[in-house]
């Protein structure tokens, strides 16, 4: 169960399989109107290598993936598949070649079973009827073979996001894939799930599959990849053999900023008590007692599904508590609705941008102002000027890269979307900010901006609850760190009082 790395032979197998180019890019370029999303890039992928691609959000990684999977067509340049120039104009053509992608957000059918999803579009049919039993058996044996302890007969929607990701990968691995692209696959995975995924990736590599691995987590790049390419502002700035480079070099290629500056931690004297819970229980968690003071970051660490998000959703009035009590600035409160929590001075930037955080097909300005419409409403109407000023100030304060407040949120990159999830609460005058996984799928530059923002909020006298599944983040930032496991608050540590290993084993429960 422990997240160790049984495989250490990545480098050796890479050398043997090298030098057989499977896909070659020559001057590949993409423009969207005036935007130069990808400047002419030359890159060769060889058979059986794990090729990591790193870069900040908006550096051109998604553009590259979309070009390789035929989702968009290139402006100029050539793509050679096994030495032959190919058009790669449709996703269908890419799949024919064996080019597949596993996305950060799972794109499968939640209402079908795991087995049905694995064979979707390629069903086992006898006499015109689905052979469900046969498919479930086959799917189960594939999953067992991969070492995933997952049942094939349950509905996909009943699994965690991390487990769904594994199913998506398993699905890609059985479809004659020869070139598999992973886009931030571990963003929602626990360490155990990530270890299972890495094992699968290595197995695919041994079978000669070329893997393109996109991640913001550099330690994964070093753990897994043979070569790494760096993108910055749409330019391919270089390709390195992973064993011959280090984090410092990669980061300096990605941005002009050193590693120490990323975790921006400032210490403030603990102020007055903002929130206290005593034996609080609710759906998904029980018996949680913790307190947050002004000027403090309380970190909640744990595996996905440990009950941290459920705990804060109850604090925010989304779910009713079933036991225990909440004290707000010393007074007992019963928080029944989100609006009530907001009026007390609590803000929540939720875990999932797409599902909980944003109205994706509405404008940037609309999303930023949604929580504060009651404040700027006069005689039932929202004055145009207040609406515009608030939105534009927030866009410039947070340096959101957008064509304007009227642009749809769906047109922004992940990092900029996350800035809006957070930014919509900054106008609200809250005292307690709850950030649930604020940096998932966000590039290093935006991360640093978010951390500086946390410090600014603390300086202004706010308290923060920070949830993260990424240990270094809570470890470096939290003044007090709580470890959650299966709905319970199992341990608490002062800043840097315990080692990573200790905390991890508390979270896993060994």
């Amino acid at each position, binding site marked *: 169960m422990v997240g160790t790395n049984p495989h250490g032979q990545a480098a050796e197998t890479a050398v043997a399989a090298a030098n057989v180019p499977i896909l070659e890019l020559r001057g590949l370029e993409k423009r969207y109107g*005036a935007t130069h999303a990808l400047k002419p890039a030359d890159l060769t992928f060889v058979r059986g290598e794990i090729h990591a691609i790193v870069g900040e959000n908006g550096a051109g990684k998604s553009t590259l993936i979309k070009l390789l999977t035929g989702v968009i067509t290139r402006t100029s340049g050539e793509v050679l598949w096994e030495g032959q120039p190919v058009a790669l104009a449709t996703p269908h053509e890419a799949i024919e070649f064996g080019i597949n992608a596993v996305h950060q957000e799972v794109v499968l059918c939640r209402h079908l079973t795991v087995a049905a999803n694995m064979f979707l579009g390629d069903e086992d049919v006898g006499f015109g009827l689905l052979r469900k039993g046969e498919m479930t058996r086959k799917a189960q044996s594939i999953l067992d073979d991969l070492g995933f302890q997952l049942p094939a007969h349950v509905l996909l929607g009943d699994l965690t996001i991390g487990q769904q990701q594994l199913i998506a990968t398993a699905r890609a691995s059985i479809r004659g894939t020869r070139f598999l692209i992973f886009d931030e696959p571990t963003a929602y995975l626990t360490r155990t799930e990530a270890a299972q995924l890495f094992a699968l990736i290595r197995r695919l590599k041994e079978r000669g599959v070329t893997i393109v691995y996109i991640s913001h987590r550099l330690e994964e790049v070093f753990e897994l990849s043979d070569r790494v390419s760096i993108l910055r502002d749409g330019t391919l700035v270089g390709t390195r053999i992973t064993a011959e480079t280090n984090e410092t070099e990669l980061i300096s290629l990605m941005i002009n900023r050193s590693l120490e500056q990323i975790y921006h931690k400032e210490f403030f004297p603990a102020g007055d008590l903002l929130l206290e819970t005593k034996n609080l229980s609710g759906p998904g968690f029980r018996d949680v007692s913790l307190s947050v003071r002004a000027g403090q970051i309380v970190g909640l660490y744990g595996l996905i599904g440990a009950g941290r998000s459920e705990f804060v959703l109850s604090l*925010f009035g*989304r779910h009713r508590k079933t036991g225990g009590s909440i004290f707000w600035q010393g007074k007992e409160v019963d928080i029944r*609705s*989100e*609006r009530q929590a*907001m009026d007390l001075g609590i803000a*929540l930037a*939720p875990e999932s941008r797409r*599902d*909980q*955080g*944003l*109205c*994706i*097909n*509405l404008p940037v300005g*609309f999303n930023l102002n*949604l*929580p504060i*419409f*009651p404040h700027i*409403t006069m005689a*039932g*109407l*929202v004055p*145009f000027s207040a609406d515009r000023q608030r939105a534009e100030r927030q866009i410039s304060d947070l340096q959101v*890269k957008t*064509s*304007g*407040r*009227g*642009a749809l949120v769906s047109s922004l990159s992940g990092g900029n979307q996350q800035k809006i999830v957070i930014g*919509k609460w900054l106008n609200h005058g809250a005292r307690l900010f709850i950030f649930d996984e604020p940096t998932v799928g966000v590039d290093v530059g935006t991360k640093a901006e978010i951390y500086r923002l946390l410090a600014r909020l603390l300086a202004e006298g706010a308290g923060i609850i920070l949830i993260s599944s990424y240990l270094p983040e809570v470890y470096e930032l939290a003044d007090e760190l709580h470890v959650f496991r299966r709905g319970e608050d199992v341990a608490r540590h002062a800043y840097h009082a315990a080692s990573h290993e200790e905390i991890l084993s508390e979270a896993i429960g060994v």
Partner: protein
Amino acid sequence: MSTDTKSAAVVRKSSANWLFGLTLLGLLLAMCIVLSLTTKSFMTEANIMNLMRQGSMIAILAVGETFVIITTGIDLSVGAVVGFCTVIAAWLLTHDFSIFATVIITLGVGVAIGMFHGFGIVQMGLPPFIITLATLTSLRGIGLLVTNGATINIVNDTFTEFSRNDFVGLPNLFWMVILVGVPAYIFLHHSRYGRYIFAVGSNMEAARLSGVNVKLTVYLAYTLSSTCAAFVGLLLAARIGVGNAMQADGWELQAIASSVIGGTSLFGAVGSVHGPLIGAFILATINNGANLLNVNSFWQRIITGLLIILIVYFDQLRRRRG
């Protein structure tokens, strides 16, 4: 990116939306011009007034329907509510209620029906399609039961004359469109709850976690839709002079069609007030023109269907490019 290109992009985007509004209006005008050239009777005062009266009622229904569609819902009951409310109005008037009381009570019935839809969706968790389909059939049934299938004649001249009279050169019924349309426009585009309707249609959970009272917003959308329908019921009762539960058959589909032609997305969070209004008058003009050109009325239905496909298809194309 310089600020110049930024603002240029914004201008381009918003002007594209305006352009779509103008294209619809242009389409309407083009149809009118063609019809006035090809027929002698189209550009007569009588016909234009008649056209305005015909289009008005669907236009008001379409505005109400649009609120619901923006929340990703659907209200199939509006035609039945219209028919039912003609019965209510006729019954009240024949039982010596004043016109004022009749109007208030009938609108109250509309509010109650809308609240019931809200209850079914929010509290019982029924899909909007189902709950409004259920009221569609039951309201027609109740109306028939109350009247025993008969038609109630309205013998109140002040009431019936209202729909035939004009005010400052425009039919009263058309003024009613303005009476509903202007507040509806201000509500949807400039009020807090108008915005909440969009937010709920875009992402209900995100709206809730932003402090939006989602339940109230859903109640509001359905109540507005049913109230618009009850209002149309009053207008129809005045125009035809009878109360009959089977009137306004299929109007819900015309209202939805007008809304969709006017740029409302059935996937929610996209829509306006002026779009559906123009959409309703486009449909009315097609029917009117087809009558004048002596096109078989069976063909009218087919043409309307094809036109819906065509207009919405081009709208989708435009959105994808934008």
